[in-house]
C-alpha cells in the first residue's frame, strides 16, 4: 500500500476484527503500519450513530448497509464526513476551510513552477437590501443561484468556494496575466445577466464586485497574504461603484509559449536567426550599452 503523507488510511486488515493504520511518520519519512487497537476493534463498538445521522442528510453518496464489509462501511463513513466538512451546506461549494487548503497547495505550485495563478474574491452587491426587501430565504436563493453560476463559469482545474456571507472566492491556476481580467469580467457579466426567481412570483437581479490578485511567482507566500491582496482589490471595486472588476497585475513573470517561440523558435529550423543577422550587422546589436 502506498504511503500517504501525513494522513492515515484505514486499509483492509483482519476481516471484521481489526483496523490497520498505514501512515508516514513525518519526522523519519518511514512508512509505519500499526494496529489501531492492540487487540481488536469491533465495528459494533464504534459509536457511529451521530455520523450516520449527519450523513443521511448531507452526503451526496448513499451509505452502504451496516452489514457490508466493515472496512468498506467505515471508509464510506469517513469519506462522507470528509465531504461534509469541506462543503458549504447552503450552496454546495467548497467551504472556507477547504478553500484555504486549495490555496496553500496552489502557492506551493506557484513557488515551484512560476506559473501565474489568479485569486478572485467576489462579493454580491447590496446583498443586505435583497435580504431586507425580499426576506432571508430570498437571500439564500440568490446565494445559491450565484454559486451555481460561478461553478458553471470556471474550468475543471479551477476552484470556487463560498468564502463567507455573500463573499465567494475563485482560484484559477495557470491563468495568464493577459487573460485574467477577461475571465473575471466574463464571470461578472454572467452573474449580471441572471434573473433569479425568489419566492413564488418575484425575481431579482444581482451584480457582483470582483477583486483579483496574482500569486507572487517563485515566492512562497501565504494564503492569508494572497487573500488580503485580492480583498484589497475587491474593496477598490466596491469603492469605485460596484459591479466592476479590479485586478492587481503585478505578477507577469512566467514565460509564455509565445515568448519562448520568439526567444528561440528559430533553433528548430537549424541555423539560429540571430547568427545570420549578426553576420550581416555585426556591430549593431541594439541592446549593447557598452562599446565592443
Amino acid at each position: 500500500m502506498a504511503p500517504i503523507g501525513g494522513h492515515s488510511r484505514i486499509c483492509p486488515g483482519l476481516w471484521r476484527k481489526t483496523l490497520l493504520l498505514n501512515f508516514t511518520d513525518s519526522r523519519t519519512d518511514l512508512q509505519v503500519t500499526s494496529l489501531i487497537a492492540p487487540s481488536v476493534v469491533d465495528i459494533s463498538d464504534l459509536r457511529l450513530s451521530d455520523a450516520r445521522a449527519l450523513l443521511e442528510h448531507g452526503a451526496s453518496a448513499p451509505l452502504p448497509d451496516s452489514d457490508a464489509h466493515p472496512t468498506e462501511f467505515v471508509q464510506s463513513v469517513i469519506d462522507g464526513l470528509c465531504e461534509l466538512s469541506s462543503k458549504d451546506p447552503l450552496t454546495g461549494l467548497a467551504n472556507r476551510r477547504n478553500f484555504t487548503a486549495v490555496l496553500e497547495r496552489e502557492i506551493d505550485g506557484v513557488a515551484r513552477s512560476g506559473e501565474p495563478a489568479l485569486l478572485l474574491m467576489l462579493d454580491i452587491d447590496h446583498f443586505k437590501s435583497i435580504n431586507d426587501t425580499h426576506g432571508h430565504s430570498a437571500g439564500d436563493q440568490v446565494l445559491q443561484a450565484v454559486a451555481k453560476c460561478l461553478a458553471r463559469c470556471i474550468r475543471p482545474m479551477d476552484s470556487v468556494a463560498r468564502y463567507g456571507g455573500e463573499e465567494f472566492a475563485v482560484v484559477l491556476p495557470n491563468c495568464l496575466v493577459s487573460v485574467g481580467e477577461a475571465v473575471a469580467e466574463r464571470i461578472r457579466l454572467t452573474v449580471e445577466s441572471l434573473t433569479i426567481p425568489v419566492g413564488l412570483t418575484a425575481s431579482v437581479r444581482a451584480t457582483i464586485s470582483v477583486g483579483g490578485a496574482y500569486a507572487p511567482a517563485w515566492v512562497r507566500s501565504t494564503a492569508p497574504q494572497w487573500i488580503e491582496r485580492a480583498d484589497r482589490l475587491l474593496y477598490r471595486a466596491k469603492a469605485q461603484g460596484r459591479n466592476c472588476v479590479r485586478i492587481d497585475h503585478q505578477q507577469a513573470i512566467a514565460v509564455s509559449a509565445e515568448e519562448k517561440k520568439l526567444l528561440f523558435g528559430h533553433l528548430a529550423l537549424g541555423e539560429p536567426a540571430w547568427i545570420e543577422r549578426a553576420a550581416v550587422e555585426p556591430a549593431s546589436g541594439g541592446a549593447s550599452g557598452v562599446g565592443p
Partner: protein
Amino acid sequence: MNEELLHEADGGPAGPQVPLAPHGKVMAVTSGKGGVGKTFVSANLAAALAKRGQRVLVLDADLGLANLDVVLNLYPKITLHDVFSGKAKLEEAIIQAPGGFSVLLAGSGMVEYSRLTPEIRTDFLRIIDGLIPRYDVVLLDTGAGISDVVLFAVSLASVVLVVATPEPTSLTDAYATIKVLAGQQKREHIYMVINQTARLGDGRAITGQLQQVLDRFVVTEPGRGVRLVHLADIPADPSVRQAVMRRQLLMQTMPGCPAALAVTQLARKLEESVMPVER
C-alpha cells in the same frame, strides 16, 4: 512568523516585491538556470579583478546548495554558517582563495537557510555591512532559480550579471529572471555574460534577441524599460572543463586560453564602464 517580512515578500499592489537596497560595491552573479557556469564566472572574474588590483571578496550566496567550495577546492572549518549561528566572527570565516581574492563560503550546514527568514535577512545585511569597508568589490554568487533568497541577495547589488548559455532552457530561465528583476526590482540595466558560445557574436545576438522579447512582453512605464547590456562572450573552451575537473582556477592555471582571456576582458569592461566611481 514575521508579518512584516511576509508582507514584503508578498508585495503590495504597488511597490516592488524585494525592496532594493543596493550598494555600489556589491555585484551579484545570477543565472536563472543552474549549471550554466555561474560559479565559474564568479570565481574567475574575482581572480581577474584581483589581478587588476582590486580587493575582491566572493560571497557564496547560494546558501542552500553551495558550489563555490567545490570549484575552489576549499573546505574551511569556519564558514558563513558559523557566522550566522553566532559561533564565529566574520573575520574568522573569510579565507584567501588561490586567485588572490577572499571568499566567504556557505558551508554544508546551510540547507536550513534555503528559505528567507527575517533572521537570515538581518544576518545577511549585517555581514554585507561588515564587508563593504574592507573590499573594493563584493561579488555575490547566488543560487540558481528565482527563489526569495536569490532575489534578496540580488537586491543588495548595484550591478547584476546574468550568466546564460545559448541553450534554449538557459535562455528561458535567464529571460524569466530578467523579467522578475525588471518588474520587482525596477532594474534599469542588467549585464549579460553569455557562456559557452560557439561563435564570435553569438552572445551579442542572443542579448539582442532577449531584449526584443522583453521590449514586447514586459510592460513597464514608457521609456523606463530594462536595458540588457552585453558584457562578454565566454567561448566554449575545453580548458574550462579541464580546470574544473582538476579543481583549479582557470585564471591561474591557463590564463592564456580563450575563456580566460574573455574573463579578463570582462573584468576590464566592468572596471572601466560599469562599476561605480569611488565616492
